[in-house]
């Protein structure tokens, strides 16, 4: 099935309580598949096409405040519209899953694949000091698996999570193994697992209040310090990445999402000609695998980042590599996807290797 369809199946099987979205290419199949599968008749999951992206993210905000597992999905221009709500979710320490199947920007741009929302996803996007946990799938199987992973991490740290996919992995079809159906949590389970949630006062002396507003700046600083503490814990525990052919690598490519697979093909061709290139694929874009980049930078003669943008992740790679290795960038923009041959050319140009 398509990556977008896999997201829909995985959400139902996770036992998600609600999906709120608004159609936009190249991710409309998420909403379409949910509408076809009619989970409201089976698990009771709510699926709602909102009147706009802004409405959808605020429905997520409301659902998340009650401790429900809720999500939304969109593509780049739509995700820009959601940024205010995402900042509010982060400030209110609410779990939620946001899927961005990126297309070429800026503006309405094109409907073809892109990775130009890396800065937006990993550096904030909305206002204020906050982070999302950002997962980058490279296969349709990961599109499936990261729904559960995203929800689980999001509930564990009470921080919204984002699946930052691109048009390739959203639109392509591959084999996929779907997880077993999990029941949705009962109201009692939600009350127990999410003591902060707005579930009615019950036997508590005061009802819970979910808000991002705190007019006392001393208290707001305390809130910020608590958020930062959570982010440091996430950075310590949740870095995920995959390495390919790095053991003996003399040069390194760093790439994420489907682009990492294009690079892998280029590396296979280079290795067939005796050029030792390795690949580091960050799976969590935030927290970024800084230590791994640093370790490999000390091993290799040069690093190339390959991205569908003008050079965004390269800033994190440079920060991590420091002076240990030179870092260059190769990218295509506006929806153009490079093929493995172009990646080989970029390696030749930047590192004067014979391939």
């Amino acid at each position: 099935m398509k990556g977008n369809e896999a997201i829909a199946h995985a959400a139902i099987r996770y036992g998600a309580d609600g999906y709120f979205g608004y159609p936009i290419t190249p991710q409309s199949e998420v909403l379409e598949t949910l509408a076809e599968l009619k989970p409201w008749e089976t698990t009771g999951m709510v699926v709602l096409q909102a009147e706009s992206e802004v409405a959808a993210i605020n429905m997520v905000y409301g659902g998340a405040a009650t401790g429900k597992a809720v999500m939304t999905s969109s593509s780049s221009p739509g995700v820009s519209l959601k940024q205010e709500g995402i900042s509010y979710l982060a400030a209110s320490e609410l779990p939620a899953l946001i899927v961005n199947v990126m297309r070429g920007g800026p503006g309405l741009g094109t409907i073809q694949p892109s990775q130009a929302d890396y800065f937006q996803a990993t550096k904030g996007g909305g206002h204020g000091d906050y982070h999302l946990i950002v997962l980058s799938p490279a296969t349709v199987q990961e599109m499936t698996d990261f729904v559960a992973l995203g929800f689980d991490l999001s509930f564990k740290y009470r921080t919204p999570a984002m699946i930052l996919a691109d048009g390739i992995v959203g639109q392509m079809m591959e084999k996929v193994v779907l997880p077993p159906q999990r029941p949705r949590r009962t109201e009692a389970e939600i009350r127990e697992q999410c003591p902060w949630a707005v579930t009615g006062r019950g036997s508590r002396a005061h009802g819970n209040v979910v808000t991002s507003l705190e007019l006392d700046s001393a208290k707001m600083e305390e809130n910020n310090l608590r958020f930062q503490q959570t982010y440091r814990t996430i950075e310590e525990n949740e870095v995920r990445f995959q390495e390919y052919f790095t053991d003996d690598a003399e040069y390194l490519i760093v790439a994420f999402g489907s682009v990492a697979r294009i690079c892998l093909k280029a590396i296979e061709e280079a290795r067939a000609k005796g050029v030792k290139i390795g690949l580091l694929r960050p799976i969590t874009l935030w927290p970024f695998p800084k230590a791994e980049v640093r370790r490999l930078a000390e091993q290799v003669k040069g690093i190339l980042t390959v991205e569908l943008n003008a050079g965004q992740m390269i800033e994190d790679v440079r920060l991590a590599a420091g002076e240990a290795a030179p870092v260059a960038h190769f990218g295509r923009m506006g929806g153009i996807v490079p093929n493995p041959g172009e990646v080989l050319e970029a390696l030749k140009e930047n590192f004067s290797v014979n391939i």
Partner: protein
Amino acid sequence: MKEEIVIAGFGGQGVLSMGKILAYAGLMDNLEVTWMPSYGPEQRGGTANVTVILSDSPISSPVLDSFDTAVVLNQQSLDKFESKVKPGGTLIYDPSGIHHLPTRTDITVVPVDATEAAIELKNSKTYNMILLGALLKCRPVVEIDAVLRGLKKTLPERHHHLLPLNEQALRKGMEMV
């Protein structure tokens, strides 16, 4: 085994669905598969193409710059993909509407007049299945039985009465090579 295939033609010729049926057939044969469409506005009338990879080991890139086999259904697609067939590879084309014939001699070039054959079968919608039959005769990467099982899985039940016609079209395509 690894077969990297591109199918290209006008939107509406059944390019994407032909690729999809091939990918499902690979799935039925327990192969690794990727199906990567051009999903742009070309789906609605311009040129459309799809890359299908079938392999017995995990597949890296779904995006390719050269192919083992190309199936091209119009002049633009022939112009675009003839040079991208690997030496020793296969180029299958429908000669209807082709003015500049393929010129390469280091690949196997196979004309299949599927437009004419579909008229003989009295159903223009059999067009892509005739070509798929021809493709499988040239490159037997999956069993015809796997294609039929794949078809059964992709076709909604209300269209299952069309399965025999599709099988007929597949076999006709195989005979034409």
